[in-house]
């Protein structure tokens, strides 16, 4: 995955409403995933962190067991 692809994924994640971000992250869970899913989860979590802060991110990651 190139930097450009990664940026494009981040841009898509930034457009999602927070509730959908949380729902998607909970569904994906904390398991070890293939590269594409892994990067998608990272993009979702980064968006969530930018909106809600570090503590909220920690709580969400604890919840999914990551």
């Amino acid at each position, binding site marked *: 995955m190139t930097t450009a692809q990664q940026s494009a994924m981040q841009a898509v994640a930034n457009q999602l409403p927070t509730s959908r971000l949380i729902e998607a992250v909970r569904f994906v*869970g904390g398991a070890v*995933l293939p*590269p*594409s899913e892994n990067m998608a989860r*990272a993009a979702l979590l980064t968006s969530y962190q930018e909106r809600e802060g570090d503590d909220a991110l920690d709580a969400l990651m604890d919840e999914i067991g990551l």
Partner: protein
Amino acid sequence: MARKKPAAHLARDERPEFLALVAELADVPAEQFPALAKQAAEQYHDAVLAGHVDALDRAEDAYTALVYKLNGDSLRGCKADADSAGHVLARAVAAQPGQVPGWGQAGEFLLEVDGLRVWVVVPHHMLGNHRFCDFRAVDLDKPFVSETGYRSVTLTATSSIGETVDQAARREVLELIQAAGKLKTIEGEYVDRRGADKRPAWLVDALAGVRADGQLAMFGDAPKDPNAKAPLTNAQRQKAFRERKRAEKEAAKEEGLVSLSLGRDDLSYMWWAMSVFLTARRDLEHLKQPYVRERLAKIFGGLPFWTPDAIEKLDQDQGILNGEKRVESERKRGWEEYEKYRKIAAAQGKELAEARAEIERLKNGLQAIAAEVSGTPAPIGAAVSAAVPKADEVATLRRQVAALERENALLESERNKAHMAIGTWEQRLRAAGQSTDYRALPGEPGHVTVTPDKD
């Protein structure tokens, strides 16, 4: 008839033979004084054992001359303080604590006479004939030669000819016992004053392996360690256990913890349950994977590269893999070039050293020939010019320098070419919208996914 005038007494530092010894020390550095003092003390000891009175006096004079010189050509104040010459040399000469000193030494040792253990302290008196020794009781609960547990005696070197210090001390103890008729019990006041805790470390060590009756200590006989943990009775141990448990329970209560007592079966069951849970969870994650991909496709499916084939190959981008290969091959080639020229330079250095050695050998040979022909060695300059013409040597070295400069220029141009090639590849990658980052990108082998740190 006129009476003969009596000989006047001369102090030691006025006697010519003593002053001659002092004069001999004029050029001796002060660092050698301790060694010389030891030597004098050994001679003194040997003289006492051999009964050689003249040697005894000479050794005493030699030692005193050292003190005299070190003290600034005077004996006055030579033991004024711990750093004075008399004490400095006495410490240098002294025996190790616990070892029987020689006649010229100060020291402390343990003496056992018919079951009576005595701590003998021999001070240093600049090798004088009289030694005021201390006899101190070791076993304060047993009779001693005095009721104070202490006795000062005088050992005289000239009266102990042929005896070592411990033999003389033993004789003194036996004479004291014989004179008193029997040993005396040490009074309580002195027992307290000379308590066992006032013993020096060497004496404690010496007593550790020996019982009061002189027998070697067996297991359990050695002195008890004062810092050892005192044994508890069963009742005390149980009480301490209950108190510890109560404290733990209260601490847990404050933290909101609940303590559970688990038996072997409980623990086995718990481990089994955890194992089942983890296995089931892993299986569920595996089953869930297609649905995860489907769900993410709903979010990211609009992206041009999010197609079923492309996302499978996200970590197999050929362009990036090729770039990595090229960087690796360039790095390897650069290293090989460096190694190659390093070896060449090392070989040339070796050749140069050999050439220099040969020149040196020829110079020496020429000198030998000149010496044989004329009877005098040829000057070095002449030998050099005759052996190797100077102009030739300079020309050789110039050729070597020119060759090295050419090799360096070649190396430099190779490196520049490599830089240009990398620049071209970077431009191509940029034009194709690809990353020029040489590190592993997400989805590529060797890439480490960095997710925001929870901590």
